[in-house]
């Protein structure tokens, strides 16, 4: 079976949607329910900064990869990654 590699990005997109939704709820809870002191502001800032950093970093890691390449899955196409290199006799 051959398919373009970007197909694996579909479940990632679903996860990303879930991730952003939960982020939104967490931000809402912090703004709505935490008292108005400096600590909730600090927590919110760290949370949003970390989220942006991780999303940005993830994008920078994944963006240069070739997601359009065709991928074939069959028993013959799977390489044995754990195969030891052939020993050379001297």
């Amino acid at each position, binding site marked *: 079976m051959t398919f373009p590699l970007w197909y694996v990005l579909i479940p990632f997109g679903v996860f990303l949607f879930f991730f952003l939704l939960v982020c939104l709820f967490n931000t809402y*809870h912090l703004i709505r329910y935490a008292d108005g002191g400096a600590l909730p502001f600090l*927590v919110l800032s760290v949370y949003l900064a970390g989220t942006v950093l991780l999303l940005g970093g993830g994008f920078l890691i994944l963006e240069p990869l070739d997601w359009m390449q065709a991928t074939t899955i069959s028993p013959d196409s799977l390489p044995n990654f754990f195969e030891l290199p052939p020993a050379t006799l001297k």
Partner: protein
Amino acid sequence: MAHAIVTKLEPGETVVLIRRAHWIVPLKIILTALVLFAVPLGVYQLIVFAAPALLDHTVARPILLLLTVTYTLAVWLFSFTDFIDYFLDVWILTSGRVLNIEQHGLFRRTASELNLSSIQDVTAETKGILQTFFKFGDVFVQTAAEHERFHMKQIARPDEMKMKIMELSEKDRIHEQGVGTPAKA
């Protein structure tokens, strides 16, 4: 400052204590997150040692990187959701009431209160080496109703909280009895 959920204090009512769980609770969350964030590095070392060909493979490499990004985002998300769960759980002791505000996951939040005069029994429980050493534990507040019981989990200085509740409860009861007694002619 009173917590945002305390919208209205009764006339003459003052906030005595505002407590969250002990700082060891968020510390545990942070340490767990750090360990979980380090897992991909361990897996990377394992791959370098056992199957280095995976890192150069045209299909395996993007999939591994995608899994790493997904995993890291998931650890961040669950750790922070856990932290917010801790951060938004607050116990407030006022001169007339005990308020218990709890966040349960994303969609459930409970805010309950007990009148100090209805409190029958307060128990402070510290168990284990960690709780004894760092002075934190649980406080159980029991009212006259059979099932009504507040459970303050992993609160800092539970004995102090217990003493304060008992003291204010006693004061409140005396005050109510004083108000309820008809004045002598």
